[in-house]
């Protein structure tokens, strides 16, 4: 799947600005950012499920086929079969009135035309694959009768039902306990590897993304500000926002004392994310950035390749680059 300069606008509010992404089969891409940065909008873009009021521009290609602006019935043919999605609240995402077996069997019967017994067999296999114990009796239960982690596994089973080549997971672990979340992440990684299925893992949790993905895209205010291999971006962040985001993470290396002997403090990004319709025109991060220069607020920084697959959009990096090239 390939996104080229995809933007989503709700009237004057731009929820996503010229996003470019390439998702290769079997790879795992993480999308991180604070709430309201447009990462969920990006996920919905991959499903063709932008709300009616949103205007989509740019190019969304699935296996070479252009889907941007395609009508609902065209998208519908690709959902579940090519791209599937799981959501943050596993309780809310399951129809409370349907037995979970019926929920998972429904796409098999509707999309694949399987008989009830064949669909049942497939559902059992899927439950087994996603690690739901005692699948036989689980099929007959209702969502409110099972735990949050089990519900998320049911949703994953539902998403996998028609063997999609891309799975979009929007904050799949946020509503879960930490240890349950870890097991769900490991499950997603394993499924991606065994099925050669691409995974887009959307989260605000850097540790989760680090564990789940090979590639990462950092978003702020509707822009992808930095992307590249996960280890590279998290290990050597170049964009001031990514640096701030890593600094704001309570982690092991923030503890104790620094080399200067002073107690290390949790570095936070000053200010708060402005509402979508009040975002600055140039770099979205200007106004909060500690290293801001004059052109930041006015001109939009272009993505700049920094080697090793790392790309960041920041005027400072452009200057440094230009300076290096001139000397």
């Amino acid at each position, binding site marked *: 799947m390939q996104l080229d300069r995809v933007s989503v606008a709700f009237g004057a509010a731009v929820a996503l600005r010229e996003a470019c992404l390439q998702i290769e089969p079997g790879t795992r891409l993480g999308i991180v950012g604070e709430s309201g940065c447009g990462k969920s909008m990006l996920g919905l873009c991959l*499903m063709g*499920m932008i709300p009616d009021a949103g205007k989509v521009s740019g190019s969304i290609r699935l296996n070479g086929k252009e889907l941007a602006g395609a009508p*609902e*019935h065209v998208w*519908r*043919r*690709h*959902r*579940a*079969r090519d791209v*599937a*999605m799981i*959501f943050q*609240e596993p309780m*809310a*995402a*399951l*129809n*409370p*009135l349907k037995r979970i077996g019926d929920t998972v069997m*429904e*796409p098999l019967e*509707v*999309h694949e035309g399987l008989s009830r017994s064949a669909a049942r067999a497939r559902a059992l296999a899927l439950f087994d694959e996603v690690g739901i114990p005692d699948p036989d009796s689980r099929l007959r239960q*209702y969502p*409110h009768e099972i735990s949050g982690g089990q519900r998320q596994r049911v*949703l994953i089973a*539902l*998403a996998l*039902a*028609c063997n999609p080549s891309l799975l979009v997971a929007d904050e799949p672990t946020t509503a879960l306990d930490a240890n349950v979340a870890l097991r769900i992440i490991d499950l997603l990684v394993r499924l991606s590897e065994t099925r050669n299925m691409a995974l887009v893992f959307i989260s605000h949790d850097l540790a989760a993304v680090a564990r789940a993905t090979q590639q990462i895209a950092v978003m702020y205010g509707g822009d992808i500000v930095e992307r590249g291999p996960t280890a590279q971006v998290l290990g050597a962040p170049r964009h001031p926002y990514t640096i701030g985001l890593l600094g704001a993470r309570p982690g092991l290396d923030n503890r104790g004392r620094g080399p200067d002997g002073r107690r290390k403090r949790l570095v936070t990004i000053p200010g708060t994310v402005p509402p979508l319709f009040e975002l600055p025109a140039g770099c979205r991060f200007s106004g909060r950035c500690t290293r801001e220069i004059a052109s930041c607020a006015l001109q939009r920084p272009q993505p700049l390749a920094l080697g090793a697959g790392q790309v960041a959009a920041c005027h400072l990096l452009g200057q440094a680059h230009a300076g290096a090239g001139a000397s």
Partner: protein
Amino acid sequence: MGYFLFRRTLGFVLTLITVSVVVFAVMNVLPGDPALTILGIEATDEALDNLRRQLGLNDPVHVRYLNWVGGALTGDFGTSHSFRVPVSELIVERLPLTVSLAVSGMVLTIILALTLGIGAAANHGKPGDWGVMFIAQIGIAVPSFWLSILLVLLFAVTLQWLPPGGFPGWSDPVGALRSLVLPTAALALVQGAVLARVTRSSALEVMRLDYVRTARATGFSRQRVLWRHVLPNAMVPIVTIVGLQFASLVTGTIVIENVFYLPGLGRLIFQSISNRDLPTVQALVMLFAAIVVTVNFIVDVLYVLIDPRLKGRN
């Protein structure tokens, strides 16, 4: 589940008893002397005494109440003063027409409300939605008897397709059905307007929920998502309103029978008022109230069937 049913059943029985006490009190205690009410002030003392004895008015009030309830439970509602036959006979004779009208009205109401309500919700904010909302808003303000008159003006007086009223009896099935078309339509259009609004807002509420997004993400067609995922979940408030509306459906049936001169229970009740036939009025009011209470009870129990989440709860 068992405890829930027990509590609801107990409440249902208590409600029925309370309703019967109210009906009995209003009809027997308020007038002072029912015999005088029935016969009027020009009646002779002898006639009054006879009627008092016939109605059992010389017994104490609680004995009369128990006699009445006991009789009603065994299908004996006393004797109609004006028709001089058992009230139960009058009821059995007229019940089929009233039930046909109420049931066909209810069915048409639900069909109209679900199609229009879900259709409007699916086209939220578009002209179709506005159209349904506009019609529903007007429909709520239109009295059923005026709508009936307008329907009669159009289809009976002007176009002459259907009879303006009256009922030929069940021995003429085609004629009987023809004479039920306009009453059913009048009943359902008004009731349907209220229910369509509820259906729409309930469906809109459900459509915002995550599992509807899941269903869409699973690639189901719009129709499938609407009817298989949204509608069942929207049913709980709809069933509530259907239950609450049943009282107004009963009222509507009584009114409509009088508009179209249909010889059902609703017409009987008005004939009995003009005839000062207290035993018949009392029996019919109790019957209608009991039907409303029973339907509300059934609706309460239906929730549990619709929503599995309630099964485990008390």
